[in-house]
């Protein structure tokens, strides 16, 4: 994992916005703390205060996708309790935002206590690049990185939240970056949450296709907006002995030359 050289970053834009509340997402919270730091740095540079509720855990997506709706519902209810009063929630993961925005209303469809709250919450939670580009209309964070970057469209971000151009615009505006498109950037990497654990061979075969396209693109770095996908891709890159690095977009956007 490349380190961010954030000490050289200067605030590029200052917004008199109200604070945002950060939902870190469990993979970034646990395995990839650099991603959390990078997100905080982005808001710091924009002059926006970040509130990070200390009690937060998970949105419930793993259990929901595995079919365990009671367990997912309990976790989701807790999420609503913690984030329900936040004005704006930002999360560096497309699939978690997709979970809250599109699956919470379904999960609580027979629960009068939480249903309205769930629908309401879905309107106030944003994936990071979606928030930066669509809400704040920021497309240049003043970052710099010299190299060829390819972008992986994660499934839920692209097909669930229709976010395709926002990350690309942010990447293209990083000084020194050449964005090279890989073939089939919108094809699943083979992660699929529990799929990756239950069907490791199929997952690996899918990841092998994805990584072949990444290698063929000639990129030095593959950037994505979901740590699940990047974890799967990274595992396969290591497996084939490639020196292509994986980076969460927040990490790229906080790099300075």
């Amino acid at each position: 994992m490349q380190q961010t050289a954030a000490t050289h970053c200067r605030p590029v834009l200052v917004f008199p916005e109200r604070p945002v509340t950060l939902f870190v997402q469990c993979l970034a919270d646990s395995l990839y703390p650099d991603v959390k730091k990078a997100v905080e740095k982005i808001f710091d540079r924009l002059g926006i205060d970040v509130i990070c509720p200390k009690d937060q855990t998970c949105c419930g997506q793993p259990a929901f996708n595995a079919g365990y709706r009671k367990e997912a519902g309990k976790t989701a209810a807790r999420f609503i309790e913690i984030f329900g009063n936040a004005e704006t929630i930002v999360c560096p993961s497309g699939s978690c935002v997709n979970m809250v925005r599109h699956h919470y209303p379904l999960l609580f469809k027979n629960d009068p206590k939480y249903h309205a709250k769930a629908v309401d919450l879905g309107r106030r939670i944003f994936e990071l690049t979606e928030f930066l580009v669509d809400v704040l209309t920021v497309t240049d964070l003043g970052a710099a990185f010299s190299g060829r970057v390819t972008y992986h469209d994660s499934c839920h971000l692209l097909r669930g939240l229709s976010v395709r151009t926002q990350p690309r615009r942010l990447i293209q505006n990083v000084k020194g970056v050449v964005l090279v498109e890989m073939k089939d950037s919108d094809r699943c990497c083979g992660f699929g949450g529990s799929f990756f654990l239950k069907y490791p061979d199929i997952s690996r075969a899918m990841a092998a296709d994805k990584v072949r396209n990444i290698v063929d693109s000639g990129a030095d770095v593959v950037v994505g907006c979901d740590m699940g996908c990047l974890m799967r891709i990274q595992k396969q890159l290591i497996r084939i002995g490639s020196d292509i690095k994986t980076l969460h977009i927040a990490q790229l956007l906080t790099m300075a030359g």
Partner: protein
Amino acid sequence: MQSYIDEAEKAISNPVLQTALANLQERLGKGAAAAYRNLPEGPGLRLKAHDIRMQAINSLDVLLETLAERVEKNGGEVIFADDAAAAVSACREIARKHGVRAVVKGKSMVSDEIGLNDALSADGIEVTETDLGEYIIQLAAEHPSHIIAPAIHKTRDEIGTLFTEKLGISYTNDPPTLTREARKSLREKFLAADMGITGCNLACSETGHIALLSNEGNIRMSTTLPRVHVAIMGMERVAATLSDHDILLRLLARGAAGQKMAGYVSHISGPRQPGHADGPDHYYLIILDNGRSRILADERFREILCCIRCGGCLNVCPVYAKIGGHAYGATYCGPVGAVVTPLLSGVGRFSHLCQGETLCGACKDACPVNIDIPRMLLELRSMLADGDASWQVRRNSLLEKAGWMIWSWMMQDRRRYEIGVKLMKRIFP
């Protein structure tokens, strides 16, 4: 579960199959996407088609009744079959009544669903598949591995050897030569057949006709040359009006093969009428339920009945691209098979199908009628997680349930969550 994994592994380690599947997706999957973009009404027509299909599904009883009336008025006979056994026995009875000794078949997935070929063969009737892919599969005594490209798993070398063995021709792996040989052999079968059996791409309630699409012309020959024509349709394959029917056929051809329209389109409304030059003397339409009413009755899954079996979802699914059709172990494979096979043949028995998908959503975007397949995969997973009395589904695994209960308990508290995180770091160092 194990057979899914074993068959998947076999497919993954077969480089020829992997190339064939990749080429199929490159050509048909991307072709369909381009064809939707080039629709005169714009790609939004898929959403309209979804509404058209849902409305038809919601008034299926009325539409089918009208369809049956119109077919009968045109001199055809309609048979409602509750299950596979009833449909098969209706076909056997028709064959017996008309003294049928030889049958030619147009490509029909529903006939594979009910196991028709074996039953007719057991009665001493010669059954010949006339779609080139299906013919190859029949000669090899295999099952289709794709809804519209049934022999995608066969190499041309394998087909050359098969034709040498079964048709007695000298070995060649040249596709045009092999096609010519199949055509020669099939032409004789067409001329000798007493009965043609086809599926039905889409019926139209307003007019009482059925439409059949093909690119080889074999279906037209199966429906016009023999003196008896039997068409079998799943009960959901009906459009209310001719204008709905038109929209759906155009989307079907696009979804299936990126075509504006298939090479041959047959509209069949009954047997030969006085003054007609050709056509069968007798026409039967079998409308098959075989578990579809049960799907219709469940709001969660009703949407899957919108499917018009174009196979478009197979052409974009990243899982299908790796494991091929046979791993699904059933007539209907790919994303649509992952939903419809468990519902028709047992959710518990086919539990691996809904779990062995990544929920990437490519199938929904490729669907000509915009069916939300991932939503239904999630519903099936939920049935397996906690059991479902209405479908006689038992909980898949008590151990797994216990695991998720512990997971949920850990997620209710930040300190417990942090312990979980530490455990995760051990699993994924």
